[in-house]
């Protein structure tokens, strides 16, 4: 349910970044969403469809690029990917001491616009 609030934040960041530009319409917004960001892409698409109405993004598509959840083992230094569960266990040496390398992203990457 917090995807709606996140989408609203995204729209306002897009509006801010286009401020001062002569834009006739936005065609596409591309964002990166980590698998471990807590955001469900389908819910975000769903929320976007009605949150965009009446905004500069009214005719835009939302392109969500999911980023894999990867960890670096602090013991053997190898990078590993999580499969089903978000747990810290190195498949190479079984150590549970690891740090997140990617998968927490939640940012706008680019906007495709039509200029006036």
């Amino acid at each position, binding site marked *: 349910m917090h995807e709606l609030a996140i989408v609203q934040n995204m729209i306002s960041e897009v509006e801010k970044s286009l401020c001062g530009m002569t834009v006739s319409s936005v065609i596409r917004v591309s*964002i990166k969403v980590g698998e471990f960001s807590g955001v469900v892409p389908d819910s975000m698409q769903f929320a976007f469809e009605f949150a965009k109405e009446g905004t500069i993004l009214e005719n835009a598509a939302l392109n969500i690029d999911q980023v894999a959840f990867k960890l670096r083992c602090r013991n053997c230094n190898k990078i590993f990917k999580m499969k089903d569960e978000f747990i810290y266990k190195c498949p190479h040496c079984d150590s549970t001491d690891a740090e997140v390398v990617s998968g927490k992203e939640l940012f706008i990457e680019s906007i495709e616009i039509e200029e006036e």
Partner: protein
Amino acid sequence: MEVKIITKILKANDEVAAELRREFDGKKIFCINLMSSPGSGKTTLLEKTIEGMKEKTKIGVIEGDITTSIDAERLQKTGAEVVEINTKPFGGDCHLEAGWIRESFHQMEAKGLDLLIIENIGNLVCPAEFDTGAHKNIVMLSVAEGEDKPLKYPLMFHKSDLLIISKSDLIEIQEFDIGKLLDNVKKVNPDIDVIIVSARKNTGIEEWIGWLNKNISIKK
């Protein structure tokens, strides 16, 4: 035309949160964000906490609820300053955002405040996403909820600095396996601290208040 903008989606919230943290630091206030599912005992623990600390410590509470002022009224009775946020007018939001915390904090008599407690909305999912400006995130889990919760809601446990295991007086009745819970939580957050409490039986409260006092003195 494609425009590269690389902007964090929650940038506005993160900026307000960072500003708030600086304001807390300047005013020497230690701020915590307390999160859990509904019914884990946040308000009961806070009643005990405030009772145990209020002689030496000035405490403010920002109480988040979707609707009703039941919790805020309970905490007002302890003598702490309480400001309530009801998210119903905002569409019944399931989490608190930094802007609302700032607004509530500015309604408080902040002079001399040592500890600010944000009691977030009962929910193990959404509040994990939004920085509130607090110095420490705390997740509370009652033994009635089961040992598997850190694996089911990993982001919440990953983002928290401290896990409070509550209702420890029910461990035997629930046949709750503390060792299994600790194994599970360390899988998603190897660095998390843990305190086990029972507000009803008054166990672990001293350790919890000690944790708070240690952090309050760091801010002074």
